[in-house]
């Protein structure tokens, strides 16, 4: 299967058409987006190969392989940092964006019109001063339910497509939350894992309460958990990144085969140079994964996350990485 890799960086969006070996940007004069726009987020289209949404500091953009360029999507987000973009996996015209300051914007017509959600996230916070959206997730059991994490304001859930929100932070040791993964079992039970600045947390009651999980220091030397992703084959395999600090110098990738109860270090060809910021999975092939460190390294796995090879090309600061089957 041919696939395309995408990287959102502080110098635009980069593409790879050779399985991550080399990366390039669109032609500078005609790419459709300033090629040094700060880009934080990407969303591939679940049904249209070659289509990508990118959230930047200049607005929201759509790339297609047909046009080979970005097209600007008018929205109320032009003066905000679009830190997260997510497309509903079953209703791809339903798009949710999260910004800094922490606001949620929703389109139900593929970006033609937008509404601002009444998300009552903190308007000021300790340390980073301004809250921001760090992840967006669509509930696999209910098409109208959306989950988000906010740095620094915990977890929120909406059951009505973003019209109202419930704050779900009881038990979180730290409201500096980064990412979520969900395990839904046949008996109706659900476990949610939440990565935070102060370790990994788990909820067994749909987010009503959280408890921090203990992970041995020899496995996770630091408390700063960042990206967490379920492998796309629904076998309970979870990958998570742990780093010394956000703009630090070290990190590890952990793999769990029992949905977070126990963890091992993934085998990397080279040590990372900073916290692993983003992990990319795609249901098209659960064995192919990518991750990127915040300071520009890219790694690829072809065996479902057990072993990883560092790609030669390094980019600038990478904020998101993704991959999707190629259009042609």
């Amino acid at each position, binding site marked *: 299967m041919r696939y395309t890799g995408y990287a959102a960086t502080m110098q635009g969006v980069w593409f790879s058409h050779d399985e991550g070996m080399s990366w390039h940007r669109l032609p500078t*004069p*005609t*790419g*459709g*987006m*300033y090629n040094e726009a700060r880009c934080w987020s990407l969303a591939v289209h679940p049904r249209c190969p070659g289509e990508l949404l990118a959230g930047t500091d*200049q*607005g929201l953009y759509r790339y297609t392989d047909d*046009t080979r*360029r970005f*097209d*600007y999507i*008018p*929205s*109320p987000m*032009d003066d905000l940092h679009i830190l997260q973009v997510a497309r509903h996996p079953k209703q791809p015209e339903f798009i949710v964006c999260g910004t800094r300051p922490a606001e949620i914007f929703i389109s139900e017509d593929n970006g033609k*019109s*937008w509404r*601002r959600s*009444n998300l*009552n*996230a*903190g*308007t*000021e*916070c*300790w*340390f*980073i001063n301004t*809250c921001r959206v760090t992840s967006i997730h669509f509930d696999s059991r209910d098409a109208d339910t959306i989950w988000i994490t906010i740095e*620094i*304001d*915990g977890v929120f859930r909406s059951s009505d497509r973003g019209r109202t929100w419930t704050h779900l932070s009881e038990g979180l*040791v*730290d*409201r*500096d939350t980064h990412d979520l993964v969900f395990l839904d079992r046949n008996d109706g039970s659900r476990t949610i894992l939440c990565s935070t*600045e*102060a370790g990994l947390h788990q909820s067994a009651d749909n987010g009503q309460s959280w408890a921090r999980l203990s992970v041995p220091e020899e496995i996770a030397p630091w*408390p*700063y958990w960042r990206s967490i992703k379920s492998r796309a084959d629904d076998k309970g395999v979870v990958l998570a990144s742990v780093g010394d*600090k*956000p*703009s630090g110098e070290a990190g590890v990738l952990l793999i769990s085969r029992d949905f977070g109860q126990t963890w091992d270090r993934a085998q990397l060809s080279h040590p990372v140079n900073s916290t692993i910021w983003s992990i990319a999975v795609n249901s098209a092939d659960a064995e192919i994964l990518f991750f990127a460190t915040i300071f520009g390294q890219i790694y690829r796995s072809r065996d479902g996350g057990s072993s990883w090879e560092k790609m030669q090309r390094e980019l600038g600061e990478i904020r998101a990485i993704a991959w999707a089957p190629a259009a042609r």
Partner: protein
Amino acid sequence: MAHFLYRPHVLGPANSITTPDLVIDRVRLVTNDVRGYAPIHRLSSAVELQVFPHQLEITPAYALVAAGGGPLLGLAALVRDSGESILKADFLVSRTAWRFRNVMNHFGSLQLGVGRSTITDTVVLSRLLQPEEIMTQADDGGLALPRGVIALCVATRTTLIAEPPLEFTARLLDQLSHRELTLSAKLDSVNDDRWDGRPLPRYTVGPIGKVEHYI
């Protein structure tokens, strides 16, 4: 001097695109009867605006924007209280534009219109003030505007009258090239609130225990 950062996506006829960022600090309004300058802070590329709960007139305009590669032709819409001078309007400008020289040979046939869910009122540009009456001769024989200037040629007789809240769309249609520019915006009344009981702002903290705090 105050300015507006205009970030157009300039679409070429062969589906090409360039994205210059242009600093604009002079807004010139022209009609068959009126010519004058308006404050730059009234210029915006926002897609949402708050207005007073009065009857409004929404009037489309074609925009000429000074640019080093040749003036741009864009689309704007003036939003003002009914009966108010166009010089006191808010000027919304679309972030997509064409290069003027790519349409100059059939400029008069372009159609400018405005409407709510559909475009209901249109005018051909040949009935408006023409670009050669607005711009000056450039060294290369073409037309040009001084740097930093946007000129809005207003179609005063093509007006949508409505009260907020409303959504409208303005359009500049090039039937010859099968292209169009659109500008859609939502106008909310200042008296309307999206919150049913607007909450007080919250300050949030991260760690509760003794955890060294990072970003």
